């Protein structure tokens, strides 16, 4: 169980994350939605202990430290692999540092995505780099897999394949926290949606609850953001009047 208690992170006067409290049990696939700068990335970096923050974050009751950090993995659009070594060299490095690393899962995914094992990562295309980044996060043997917009730049077929493979290989105890803009695409795939706006949680609902209430994820998000679809009509009518 990953618990966030009243997390606040400010950069000087700008507050990136404001009093966020969340409980994330194992086994969920969660979509984290929010506009650019909403605080999604900052929140993940707090969980991973990259940043200092107010409040506390615990994993099964323990703070996140070097003893249990291996239970969290991370895939980011900024990429966190080593560009100057090969994929297989990454496998050796991860194997040496993460006791639960699964070489089998690693090789299976590399094969499925047809990525070369013996070429330096810097020579991969952007799409391949994204795929490799996610493969590392999935093979680490973590219980909580945090992914920060991992598919920026991948074409839709790539992404579709990816969601399907993910669903096929995830064990019941593995948790995925995926921050993304691609709401429509992931709406069937996630079990829970968390919405962040200006550093605060403005929505937290499971897909079961959405089904019971009979609303789609997109509609829920629109209402949480007070999205006004009539703004477009208003603007066009104004332009028309001017003519």
């Amino acid at each position, binding site marked *: 169980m990953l618990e966030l208690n009243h997390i606040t992170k400010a950069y000087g006067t700008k507050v990136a994350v404001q009093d966020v409290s969340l409980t994330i049990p194992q086994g969920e*696939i969660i979509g984290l939605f929010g506009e650019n700068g909403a605080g999604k990335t900052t929140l993940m970096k707090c969980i991973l202990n990259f940043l200092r923050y107010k409040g506390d974050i615990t994993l099964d009751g323990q703070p996140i430290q070097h003893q249990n950090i291996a239970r969290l993995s991370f895939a980011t659009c900024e990429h966190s692999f080593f560009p100057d070594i090969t994929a297989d060299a990454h496998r050796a490095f991860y194997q040496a540092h993460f006791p639960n690393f699964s070489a089998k899962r690693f090789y299976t995914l590399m094969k499925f995505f047809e990525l070369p094992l013996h070429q330096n990562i810097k020579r991969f295309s952007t799409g391949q780099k994204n795929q490799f980044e996610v493969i590392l996060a999935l093979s680490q043997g973590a219980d909580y897999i945090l992914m920060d917009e991992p598919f920026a730049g991948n074409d839709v077929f790539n992404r579709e394949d990816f969601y*399907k493979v993910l669903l096929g290989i995830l064990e*019941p105890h593995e948790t995925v926290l995926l921050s993304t803009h691609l709401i429509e695409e992931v709406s069937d795939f996630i079990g829970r949606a968390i919405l962040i706006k200006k550093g605060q949680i403005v929505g937290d609902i499971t*897909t079961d609850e959405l089904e019971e209430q009979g609303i789609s994820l997109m509609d829920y998000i629109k209402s949480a953001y007070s999205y006004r679809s009539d703004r477009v009509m208003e603007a066009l009518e104004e332009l028309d009047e001017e003519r």
Partner: protein
Amino acid sequence: MISFDHFQKEDGLPVYLQIVFYIKRGVVAGTIQDGDILPSRRVVSALLGVNPNTVQKAYRILEEEDLIQSRSGAKSCMVLNEPVIRKIRRELVENDTRSIVHTLRQMGLSREEVHSLIDRLWEQEV
């Protein structure tokens, strides 16, 4: 093993219900028979690109209606016989017909107009 190759995800209906209907239509069409094995929850969720809980919900409904039998450790299989198949056929027909009736009423047709429409179209089929 029951195939999901022809499953098409649609808007409007929750996915778990779509899965239930897919199985039931297969039963009525005869492509799904007694004893046929259902793929595991995880495989179906990967094939369809949907959350495993969605598939779990669908399987649970089928189990509650005594259409499938799940054994721990092994895959679930279909439990069908003639009366059950007929019941499902009736249920699906009634469901589809209910939507049509609803649509036709919304369009303002009277009962007599619907009857003569059906007669006319029935003749055309022959």
